[in-house]
């Protein structure tokens, strides 16, 4: 796996890109490769999405392939499902991940089940773009990280990238996948997270975790924005002599249990960190899988840190304390390693 942690050496022209630029490049490359790839959503064309991430794509591909829609998330997601069944490879962009709540029937009752219900006869190569992440002062209906919901539904694949390199490779894999894939893009990372990205074509297979930092004392399992948080905590831990390993599953489904479990067997300690709501979400499943398979190598219970189990507040004074911080990860890890 770790060869995907950094760009392949033979990579031609590795540039430093932002998370958002990497996603745009992935979409552009796939649209050049395959005329059946189209993208639809609200204000995706001239406006380049609300987050401006796709600025310019419409100039290259035109309004027939970068398609502005009415404010009908369920409506155009349904179109995406039908189009995917009949020869297209649509990407539907629902802007704020919070709006998933409006389209869940099309995603989880329709897209997720059509292949199975038809006895394998129809397939739905659809990509659903959603965003996640708080601390933008957007309050309770524009700040959620709902990746746990689609992860609960058989028939869906769920991608939660943390770096520009992963974002490009995973997004391209998602577009080429013949199953419905929901990809969660962290809003704050769009501009904030930068990293090396090869100009060349590469895909990262879905279901392969990545060790973002090798370590021996404790395993920090983290997704999306929390990978940066975990890496930050790992730096702090290093200063107190604790060598943390940071493992990023990159996709919640398929799930690379082996890499997670091997890491914990090695370190014997584990914290799972996620930006989704704490209860009945991502951390519960990952912690369970790990304790099931690494129990006898564990020093103590697998611990979890998630978004505080409250609707996300507007006030900065409140919102900032709802998301797991480097400090919290550091304190908990230190206590677990009793140093």
């Amino acid at each position, binding site marked *: 796996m770790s060869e995907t942690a950094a760009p392949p050496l033979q990579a031609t022209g590795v540039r430093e890109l932002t998370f958002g630029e990497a996603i745009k490049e992935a979409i552009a490359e796939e649209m050049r490769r395959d005329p*059946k790839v*189209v993208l639809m959503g609200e204000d995706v064309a001239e406006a380049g999405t609300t987050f401006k991430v796709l600025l310019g794509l419409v100039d290259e591909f035109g309004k*027939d392939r970068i398609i502005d*829609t*009415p404010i*009908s998330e*369920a*409506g*155009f*997601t*349904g*179109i*995406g*499902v*039908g*189009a*995917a*069944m*009949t*020869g*297209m490879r*649509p990407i539907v962009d629902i802007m704020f991940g919070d709006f998933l709540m409006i389209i869940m*029937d*099309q995603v989880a*009752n*329709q897209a997720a089940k*059509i*292949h*199975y*219900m*038809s*006895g*394998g*006869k*129809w*397939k739905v190569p659809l990509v659903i773009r959603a965003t996640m992440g708080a601390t933008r002062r957007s309050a309770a209906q524009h700040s959620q990280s709902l990746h746990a919901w689609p992860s609960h539904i*058989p*028939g869906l*694949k769920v991608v939660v990238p943390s770096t520009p390199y992963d974002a490009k490779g995973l997004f391209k894999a998602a577009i080429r*996948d*013949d*199953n419905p894939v929901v990809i969660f893009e962290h809003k704050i990372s769009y501009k904030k997270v930068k990293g090396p990205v090869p100009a060349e074509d590469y895909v990262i297979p879905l279901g392969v975790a990545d060790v973002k930092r090798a370590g021996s004392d404790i395993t920090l399992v983290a997704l999306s924005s929390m990978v940066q948080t975990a890496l930050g905590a790992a730096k702090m831990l290093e200063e107190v002599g604790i060598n943390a390993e940071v493992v990023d599953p990159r996709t919640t489904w398929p799930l690379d249990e082996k890499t997670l479990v091997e890491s914990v067997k090695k370190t014997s300690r584990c914290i799972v960190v996620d930006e989704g709501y704490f209860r009945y979400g991502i951390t519960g499943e990952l912690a369970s899988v790990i304790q099931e398979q690494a129990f006898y190598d564990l020093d103590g219970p697998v611990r979890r840190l998630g978004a505080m189990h409250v609707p996300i507040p507007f006030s900065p004074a409140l919102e900032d304390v709802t998301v797991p911080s480097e400090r919290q990860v550091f304190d908990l890890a230190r206590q677990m390693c009793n140093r």
Partner: protein
Amino acid sequence: MSIPQEKLLRLYRQMVAIRLFEERVNDLYTRAVMPGLAHLYIGEEAIAVGVCEALRSDDYITSTHRGHGHCLAKGAKPHLMFAELLGKEAGYCKGKGGSMHIADPATGNLGANAIVGGSAGIATGAAYASKYLKQGRVAVCFFGEGALGQGLLYEELNLSQLWKLPVIFVCENNGYNEYTHFSESTAGDVSARAAAFGMANETADGQNVREVYGVASKYIERARRGEGPAFLQFKTYRYHGHHVGDVARAYYRPKAEEQEWVTQRDPITLHGQWLMDNGIAARPALDAIQEELIKEMDAAVEFAVSAPYPDPSKVNQDVYV
């Protein structure tokens, strides 16, 4: 519009086939041979048959919980449908879908759907793909008037009209949403709801298969020419219960009403009479059609009943491609 003779006879044959199929479904349920429930299309045959007769084999349809008629009219094979209804490996969906999820790419059947209104987006999406890929295919979205309660339908009416997609919304108005008369669930005028989006629309008699065929042909060809979607409402009636288990119906609809439709408005009887009145077919010829179909349907049931169930190990196949 004048309909060629062999088409007129096929319309008759197809309706009888659906009627006979559904009678056997009811029998399989009553004899506890069929797992679960099924929603019979008996009484509404003219709609599926009239509309599908106007479609090309590579055109698309989406169907509903009451979908057997749509699937058969679009070309599904009875024995593979019975096998699916009985949960057998040989069924269209390997037994994984059942009555409410018959799907068949070979006949352009995108699938029946157990979510009321749930296929409005799928049909619109297929029409979008046909337009984008310049295939000239049309997609028909069948739905009952109960689906008028689902907001998704209006989003698709707007999107399809805005983008001039070749999709035809076919509202089968049989007067009831389950056990509630549609007047208790539907304000205003049905076709006005499509007209509001600037969509071409027409309301016709769903018991007259020739009228259904004529109206459907007109708007399907219009859509194929790229002139946009249409909304067609056909007035009809289901003779049986909402599903096979719904036998005591007096509390929600009068027996007399059922009787009137069965005796006065039956699409098969009416079309058969018309064929005879117009000297296109005599009674013996019509009887022969029926006899032949009875044999076919009985054989199909035979096949399904004796077909094996899927091996339990197949349960986690087909979840992902």
